[in-house]
């Protein structure tokens, strides 16, 4: 604390303190913000004030103008005149404005009959220790969190359903290649025993293929499972450069053409998931194309809230009955696509995690062609 400029130290020799010293001490304490005083007339107009804590109180105006917490207490203050020994206390009130919270203050009003005035005493409420505030936050936070767990139960139910789905995938879809592998092994052993080395070679090749396929399925299953937990970093992404890079990197038959159209903005977003979504959808369109001179058209529409992308092909189309199931893990429409069946499941899961959407338009009246419409939020809300 800075040393007072005037000499107002308490006397240590027991001598009486004169009135001037008391006044000077009080004044000094008020200037340090230890308390503030406001004199109010019988109409509750602020007449004079004293001390930095009440600097903002305007004199000549109703005290409630400067101190809104006193609004509503006017009658209680007036009633003090009738009961001289009473005081009115309003404890621990903080006034919050756009400038931030003000100090928490105690207000006490007295009726000073000799002066025919009210005296408003303002002093700081004992400030809570950091530990006390933190403890309160933790105790209350835990109570709230416990209840929020219940609110999350919907999400959990969904996650559980997904887990069950996983279990069934493991037991059915992975069982099939495993079983194939077992038969192949038996046959290969037999071929070796019989000395049919050509057959053995072919069977071993098939075994290797099956093993590869299973390992790919496992990796994509893991990738799928971990989407939604990945906390990626937001970066500035040039979506036009991104879509071009994706298209260039994907192998495609020589006769196939891919057109990129529309407006592709630069946005601050999660690059890896956007890459994953676009790559899988385009890869899907390439793989399911059944003609050599097929065309894929990728068009973007940029709006304030989202980036909408459509990916259309002129391939065989997808029957409406399959529009939902294509988004389930390990479902392919069959055919020699070489896919693991995880692509669209990954795409949908990624989009849903980030607040986007995907929709498929295809196979109406048995016509050809498929369009995937996806929306990508311009603001990523994932925590």
């Amino acid at each position, binding site marked *: 604390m800075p040393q007072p400029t005037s000499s107002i130290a308490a006397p240590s020799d027991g001598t009486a303190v004169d009135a001037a010293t008391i006044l000077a001490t009080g004044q000094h304490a008020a200037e340090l913000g230890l308390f503030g005083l406001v004199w109010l007339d019988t109409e509750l107009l602020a007449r004079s004030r004293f001390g930095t804590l009440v600097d903002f109180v305007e004199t000549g105006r109703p005290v409630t103008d400067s101190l809104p917490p006193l609004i509503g207490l006017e009658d209680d203050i007036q009633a003090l005149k009738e009961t001289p020994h009473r005081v009115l206390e309003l404890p621990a009130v903080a006034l919050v404005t756009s400038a931030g919270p003000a100090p928490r203050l105690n207000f006490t009003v007295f009726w000073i009959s000799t002066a025919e005035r009210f005296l408003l005493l303002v002093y700081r409420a004992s400030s809570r220790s950091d530990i006390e505030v933190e403890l309160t936050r933790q105790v209350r936070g835990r109570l*709230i969190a416990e209840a929020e767990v219940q609110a999350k139960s919907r999400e959990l139910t969904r996650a559980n359903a997904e887990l069950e789905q996983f279990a069934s995938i493991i037991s059915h879809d992975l069982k099939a290649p495993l079983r194939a592998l077992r038969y192949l092994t038996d046959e290969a052993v037999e071929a070796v025993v019989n000395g049919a080395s050509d057959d053995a070679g072919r069977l071993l090749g098939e075994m290797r293929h099956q093993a590869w396929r299973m390992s790919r399925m496992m990796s994509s299953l893991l990738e799928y499972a971990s989407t939604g937990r990945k906390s990626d970093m937001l970066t500035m992404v040039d979506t036009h450069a991104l879509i071009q890079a994706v298209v260039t990197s994907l192998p495609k038959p020589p006769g196939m053409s891919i057109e990129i159209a529309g407006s592709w903005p630069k946005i601050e977003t999660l690059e890896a998931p956007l890459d994953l979504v676009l790559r899988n959808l385009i890869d899907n369109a390439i793989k399911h194309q059944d003609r050599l001179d097929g065309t894929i058209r990728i068009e973007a529409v940029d709006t304030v809230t989202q980036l909408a992308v459509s990916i259309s092909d002129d391939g065989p189309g997808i029957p409406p009955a399959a529009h939902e199931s294509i988004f389930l893990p390990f479902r392919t429409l069959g055919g020699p696509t070489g896919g693991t069946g995880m692509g669209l499941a990954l795409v949908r899961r990624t989009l849903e995690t980030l607040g986007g959407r995907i929709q498929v338009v295809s196979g109406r009246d048995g016509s050809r062609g498929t369009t995937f419409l996806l929306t990508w939020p311009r603001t990523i809300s994932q925590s």
Partner: protein
Amino acid sequence: MIARKIMLLGEIGVGKSSIAKRLVLDHFEFDYKPTIGVDVYQYDVPDDAGRPGMRLIVWDTDGNFGDAIFRHVYMRQASAAMIVGDVTRRGTLEAMAKLGEGFLDAFPGRHFTYLVNKFDLLAEGQLPDLPEPLTRKGISLVRTSALTGDNVREAFRAAADIIHRRAL
């Protein structure tokens, strides 16, 4: 401009401070900072269709007060109360109903509105599970989200209309 006092009541963590901050400062924090004591805000409701502008003195109370708040000096001469609950916590909605009763007892004739807050946490199409007293005819109930700001200003404007009409 006339000034009227309006209380924010409700269990801890239901979003009373968040509603006050959304209303007055138009911002939202995910971080929970408990109110220990009481914080006072001012919000000017602009004039509208025959009602002059009104300054609302918004008292954001500590959720720990419970029923004791009705006997506290803080409540003196309150024109109205906003009784807040968290739509994801059933217990806080039941507490709202109790506070509503307590308010009517202690302040007969004064107005109160139930604010069912954190509506943003409900999934699309999901209906809140409200205790019976909150669904009675004639009560004011507004679904709010301090996070998105949905219905926050509207609720206070409607309360100002009622305070004016009933001269509270």
